[in-house]
């Protein structure tokens, strides 16, 4: 299981308390994690990535194992520790004021 941590505003929107676990059969990628996450929590659709293009929203960032994965291709494998559930996959609202 892959551990996913969401920013507070999206946890409130989706009614999530704490960390979420999603399963990715086969090779775990960011696209598959987000697909699973949105399937489990439909309120998150469109809030992390564009519903039409699938592209990450400009002010959302993806981190894992101390790396910024935001600019990685969505079908690239996740870091092994994230895929194994040893480290969380972090979805973060960019620090942009407000």
């Amino acid at each position, binding site marked *: 299981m892959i551990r996913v941590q969401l*920013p507070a*505003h*999206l946890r*409130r*929107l989706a009614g999530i308390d704490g960390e979420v676990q999603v399963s990715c059969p086969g090779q775990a990628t960011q696209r598959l994690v987000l697909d699973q996450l949105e399937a489990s929590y*439909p*309120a998150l*659709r*469109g*809030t*992390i990535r*564009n*519903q*039409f293009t699938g592209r990450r*929203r400009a*002010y*959302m960032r993806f981190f894992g194992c101390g790396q910024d994965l935001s600019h990685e291709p969505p079908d690239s494998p996740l870091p092994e520790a994230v895929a194994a559930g040893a480290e969380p996959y972090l979805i973060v*609202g*960019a620090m*942009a004021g*407000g």
Partner: protein
Amino acid sequence: MTGVRVLVGTSKGAFVLNSDGQRKLWDISGPYFGGWEVYHLKGSPADPSRLYASQSSSWSGQVIQRSDDGGQTWQAAGNKFGYDGEPGTHQWYDGTPHPWEFARVWHLEPSLNDPDTVYAGVEDAALFRSDDGGMTWHELPGLRDHQSGPSWQPGAGGMCLHTIIQDPSRADRMFAAISAAGAFRSDDSGATWRPINRGLRSEGIPDGDAEVGHCVHRIAMHPSRPDVLFMQKHWDVMRSDDAGESWREISGDLPTDFGFPVDVHAHEPDTVYVVPITSDSEHYVPEGKLRVYRSRTGGGEWEPLTRGLPQAHCYVNVLRDAMAVDSLDECGVYFGTTGGQVYGSADAGESWEPIVRDLPRVLSVEVQTLS
């Protein structure tokens, strides 16, 4: 027992203000959707328990919320707003072509008859409709596809469709207004649209009398007289007596005719309210005095309404969707400011009291009269 429910959208969440028919004591709940911009929320005329809210943020985009219990609980509805077909371009601020891009929902207008049908006015300007309680949305493309569409340019706040009015006497007639394209009317349930801007004159565009390009800030109608429309334009307060076929200026003796909201008394179709703002570069009330102006003659002659409102050192604005009236016997008038105050008058504007003083910047105010 009668009462009112005031729905307030702010830059950091929504608030619901409830009172009985006296409108003296208020129960204030919220923030709902804290931290998010709530451009607008509105109740269904057909089912007052059904509310819709537009929740958005720069980080996470657009969310539509729906309540079936008068705002006590909310559920996220559908938020997939896709333009019909190949959207093409409109003009950007510098006059270059710019792709039509969805930014947010500015205004939600529930159907007069069906709580599951609701219209959404969005930026970049387009009109959407949902027939399943906000779960799915489809564009009514006849508006954006008008031949003038590629020439539309955004106003300073973005190219927003901010006003949607349904004619209660003609189910197929609707009005919409866009900054800075102007006013439009459909006589076939939104399938096709035409500009209704004859008589408007705007100094900020090359042809001041152009068919489109006018920065209309707000339009209001009294349901008993749907051919009479009142408009707050960027500058100028206007009136039409023929459903928008022609307009004439009714700014009269206002201290300034720049402003954003305009609304009509619930029982007196010729009693109109505006809030004059200093200028297009000074978005605050003139002379530090917060004054609502009322005309009881359908425009032209205006009186300041000041009792209970700050008359010194006040520099707030009142945005286009931030004024509303209730329909109790003594008409109530409400407005919210960019300073976070929501004022109410239970006597048609003669006197005012702050319902709440320290909310975030108020983006919209709507009222439901409950029986």
